[in-house]
């Protein structure tokens, strides 16, 4: 090998029970370069850096640092070999000063006593080196997020980091702070530090990196020289795959004359200026990257979080659900992303789960009508084919797909009109996915309306009648069926839109 690589990952594979997170990823980091690492949600970026930090042990593959081979890392080995990771969450202690944080866990001491003065001097030097202006005596809780991140970086450099891995470093920062961070990162490159820079924001990757590596579905795709790469090319590489999956056919069932749900300039729960319409019999897809504000929007519509302004209209009438209960009674349902935490009541029976939202409706003087309760459960067990020996079985003992059906059964029993699916097939195996898709078809064909949040590009394109894309808690585009295109969606989701144009729209309305 003639080239000077600081860090090499060779054919890294990571398997979890039932899932392969990384199939085969190879990565080579040159000394003193910034390597951009990009990929869709779930491509395996996080798992890959966890392999470098020692938080995850690879199933197979080699990690080479300065030519030295390792089968696995431990947090200690990583530190000894100069690998530092800047996570989105910082490890700072707010009640301590900047200097004390810099030397957290390994303070400079004079005998038994901490030598505050020496630490402050050293800290001042370290900050100077990075050309950042932080008073070493300032308590960290009084510093802005940007400066807190700087302390993390300074800490890594102080500990002789040769490789700095930054996971979405710009996500919590303001525009100004991002620019400062760029300066520091570029300064570090000049000093010979090698950097892996992970970001959803392609513009940043283009601005900073020397080379760009793309991974997809846990596999290495390609590495490009940044000046020769184009946005289109990158997006193609990230999305890449052919539409392989088959989606069950759906009868035309959209009634454009009837709007079920309408949002007018809704703000709240972090989201800004959401306006959309869902028609009877329509599947409206909500695309975007993780953290774009899709789940947040669902929570507002479902009454789990409050809106701060704007109007929500259901069948033309303004509604303002303040709790899930109110939303459910209005005919809105949410099938949440985290099925085990928010969706199913795992320690309760199928029967209890299905009847849970309607117990008050099927009770007289608070006494449950047991016959109706049982009949309801049996009906939906049959209608949506929940595979179980008995409706008294605990939901915990069902497969993911069947749990999802129980949740759906619950909302059908509650007579919901609008059903919000948040990642409807996450963690569900392929066969069961197809069944869920068929159920979604049955729902719209029988006059329900669906808002479907999905991070799976194929699913989004395959199942939606129309797609709205969010980025950074704002709507960045709406696509009609004939406009569906993975590249376009990815571009909208990466928020590389003309911001001026967006602002213009806002002003006009």
């Amino acid at each position: 090998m003639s080239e000077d690589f600081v860090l090499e990952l060779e054919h890294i594979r990571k398997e979890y029970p039932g899932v392969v997170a990384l199939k085969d990823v190879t990565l080579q980091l040159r000394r003193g370069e910034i390597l951009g690492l990009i990929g869709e949600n779930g491509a395996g970026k996080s798992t890959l850096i966890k392999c470098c930090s020692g938080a995850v042990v690879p199933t197979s593959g080699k990690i080479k640092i300065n030519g030295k081979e390792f089968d696995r890392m431990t947090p200690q080995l990583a530190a000894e070999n100069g690998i530092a990771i800047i996570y989105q969450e910082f490890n700072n202690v707010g009640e301590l000063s900047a200097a004390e944080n810099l030397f957290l866990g390994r303070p400079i001491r004079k005998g038994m006593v901490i030598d505050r003065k020496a630490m402050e001097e050293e800290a001042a030097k370290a900050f100077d080196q990075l050309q950042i202006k932080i008073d070493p005596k300032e308590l960290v809780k009084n510093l802005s997020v940007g400066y807190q991140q700087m302390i993390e970086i300074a800490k890594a450099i102080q500990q002789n980091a040769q490789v700095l891995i930054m996971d979405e470093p710009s996500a919590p920062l303001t525009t100004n702070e991002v620019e400062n961070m760029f300066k520091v990162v570029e300064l570090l490159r000049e000093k010979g530090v090698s950097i892996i820079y992970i970001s959803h924001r392609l513009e940043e990757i283009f601005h900073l990196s020397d080379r760009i590596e793309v991974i997809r579905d846990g596999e290495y795709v390609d590495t490009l020289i940044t000046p020769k790469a184009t946005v289109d090319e990158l997006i193609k590489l990230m999305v890449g795959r052919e539409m392989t999956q088959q989606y069950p056919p759906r009868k035309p069932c959209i009634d454009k004359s009837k709007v079920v749900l309408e949002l007018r300039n809704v703000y709240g729960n972090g989201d800004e200026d959401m306006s959309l319409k869902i028609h009877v019999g329509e599947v409206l897809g909500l695309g975007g990257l993780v953290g774009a504000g899709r789940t947040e929007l669902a929570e507002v519509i479902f009454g789990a979080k409050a809106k701060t302004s704007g109007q929500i209209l259901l069948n033309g009438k303004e509604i303002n659900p303040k709790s899930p209960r109110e939303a459910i009674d209005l005919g809105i349902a949410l099938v949440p992303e985290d099925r085990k935490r928010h969706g199913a009541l795992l320690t309760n029976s199928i029967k209890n789960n299905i009847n849970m939202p309607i117990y008050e409706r099927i009770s007289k003087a608070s006494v449950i009508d047991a016959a109706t309760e049982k009949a309801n459960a049996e009906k939906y067990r049959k209608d949506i084919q929940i595979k179980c020996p008995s409706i008294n079985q605990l939901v915990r003992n069902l497969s993911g797909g069947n749990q999802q059906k129980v949740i759906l059964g619950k909302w059908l029993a509650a007579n919901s009109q609008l059903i919000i699916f948040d990642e409807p097939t996450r963690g569900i195996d392929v066969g069961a996915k197809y069944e869920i898709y068929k159920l979604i078809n049955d729902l719209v064909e029988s006059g329900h309306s669906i808002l479907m949040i999905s991070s799976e590009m194929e699913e989004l394109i395959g199942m939606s009648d129309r797609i709205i894309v969010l980025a950074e808690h704002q709507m960045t585009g709406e696509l009609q069926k004939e406009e569906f295109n993975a590249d376009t969606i990815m571009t909208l989701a990466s928020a590389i839109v003309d911001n001026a144009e967006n602002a213009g729209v806002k002003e006009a309305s």
Partner: protein
Amino acid sequence: MKNLKGNSLIKSNAIWIVFILEVIIFAIASGGTFVTGSNIVNIARQVSYYGIASIGMTFVILIAGIDLSIGSIITLVNVVCAFLMVNAGMNMWVAVLAALIMATLIGVINGAMVASIGIPALIATFATQTIFEGVAYLISGGRPIAGFDQNFGLFGRWSIGPIPICAIIMILCFVLGSFILNKTYFGRYFYAIGGNEEAAELSGIRVNRVKYLIYALSGLFAGLAGIVLLSRSGSAQSTVGKGLEFDVITCVVLGGVSVNGGVGRMSGVIAGVLIIGSLTNGMILMDVSEYTQMVVKGIVLAIAVGIDCLSKKRQAV
């Protein structure tokens, strides 16, 4: 799956086996005194008040909460009810009703702290425990209040034939508790909230309201237990309820109600009450000192919770 079912069948009956073994051991050790009719009636009287209180506690623990205030509620109900009857000359029934309403309201205060403010149940009810123990002292001045209406013996002293009325009250309360748990939607809500509070809320349950209801019920049942106790002792003491929450929690947990919430049945709690009741009685018969009793009961509580936690751990794997 079958194996699991078989196991849980043994598990739900295990507690009754423990109870029967306990009875046999005490019967032999006491030379038969333990199983005489008069001692059984005695046990029935002794268990009645914490049996009644355990029903509210069952609901509380089912939603993974805890109510440490019930000992103080029992004390305060004793003092207030006695004060109203003796010092204020109030009609017995009115005094009882007033005391029960007060007990329920203390439960509502617990509910408000836990549900609306979000204070952990352990701390919230610990605070009310201290507050209302103090209030009881303030009202009574630490002096016992006695000299009730003859008829007040109804709740704790009278019998129908050989059966003490307080035992009948307890049985009725257990029937009511089972009914709430199994036949009304409130019972379903309790299990749902105990299993997963967030998912319960997202399934349309107004979790906070249910919490208010549960702590209020816990107060109410504790209040009723206090009335029974007052009637039995014939005199209100400011220390009468001290530490009673401990016995009640032990009964409930021993009865198989998981401290992690969501799991448990009324029948198990009945067994738990009987076990603790006969344990106390048996130890008294055998002249075991009060301090040794504390040691034994503490160990029983630790074992009961330990079994619960171990089975949870095994499930997680």
